[in-house]
């Protein structure tokens, strides 16, 4: 019973604190790539949540974060928040975050995590699938439905952000590698 309680409170703490980490990543100034494409770190938070927490906790952390945004807290990069952001053309990406984190976490449970190196490679692949592909699919659906773009136009529009997101996948893999060495008992993917 004690073990169960401890697992339950660990989940509660991890979900809350990871949601806090994603909020902090929104406070860090964005970095502009050449061609004016901005990199904000919050999508990196989505990838990290999946890799570190596993599918269920990552999903909960992102839902908690989005609930806080919906409640009016200015936690998105640039100090945005409130229900209005869920009606913007980029709302598809926001709705895709919890699903992307879940898929990243699920992929991490399937891929090998025996050494820091294999964990990092797995993290890159899982992030590319969940944090990049899934989030962009949701983003494209949002652009088609809210901005009334055609599928081709929406896909072309989202492709601009793919190089930046690939850099984030690599960053996520680096962080996972460091965490695997710094906290050897940490179980990636939950």
């Amino acid at each position, binding site marked *: 019973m004690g073990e169960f309680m401890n697992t339950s409170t660990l989940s509660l703490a991890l979900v809350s604190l990871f949601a806090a980490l994603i909020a902090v990543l929104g406070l860090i100034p964005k970095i502009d790539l050449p061609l004016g494409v901005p990199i904000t770190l919050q999508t990196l938070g989505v990838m990290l949540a999946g890799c570190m927490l596993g599918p269920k906790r990552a999903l909960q952390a992102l839902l908690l974060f989005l609930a806080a945004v919906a*409640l009016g807290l200015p936690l998105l990069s640039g100090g945005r928040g409130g229900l209005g952001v869920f009606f913007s053309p980029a709302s598809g990406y926001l709705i895709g975050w919890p699903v992307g984190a879940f898929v990243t976490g699920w992929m991490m449970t399937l891929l090998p995590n025996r050494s820091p190196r294999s964990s990092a490679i797995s993290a890159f692949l899982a992030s590319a699938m969940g944090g990049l592909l899934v989030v962009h699919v949701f983003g494209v659906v949002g652009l088609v439905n809210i901005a009334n773009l055609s599928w081709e*136009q929406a896909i072309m529009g989202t492709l601009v952000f793919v190089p930046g997101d690939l850099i984030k996948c690599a960053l996520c893999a680096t962080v996972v590698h460091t965490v695997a060495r*710094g906290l050897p008992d940490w179980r990636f993917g939950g």
Partner: protein
Amino acid sequence: MGSLYSEHRTWLHAVPAALKLVCLALLGMGLFVTQQWPILLCLAVVCVGLFASLGKATARAKPLVMGVLVAGVLVAGFHVVMHQPQLAAVTVLRLLSATLMGIALTLTTRYTDLLQVFEQVLSPLRWLGVQSDRLALQLALMLRFTEHFFVVWRRLDDAHRLRTGKAGGFKILAPLTIQMLVTARRVADALHLRLRR
């Protein structure tokens, strides 16, 4: 961490949070039922008028409104370039109406009132294992540690600057994550002792 709620009282502050949420949900659905731009224009005029009636309370939301306007101009410009002016009008009017009403709700509804509605809405999910009463605790923890981790980030950045003369950037992300995971274990132990009562 301050909410976007405005302390400047308006008539919309007196409307219950649940009613405002229901109206927003209905408006959101209604906007997608029609493709007729004259109907959407009428709705947009009502929404802009309602938003403007909040007066000084809207001052806090200026950056958000600017963001909506910029997004609207970009989307409209794109459709006009593609020779679809009617589609541009429909899209921008929907975007403007829904977003302004979302911002109006955020400005005039306390975070705690919205949280109460969220908990009530989620309470039927209890049989699926969703503990809606823990939402408040999780949000409180999240907000407490958002400030904490930001301070930790700044400290790590300062230390990196002292060592190398350069900003930490992405290099301090891994130590920040490790600190977060270690803190989560400590918080879990503290919560375990407290919730066990």
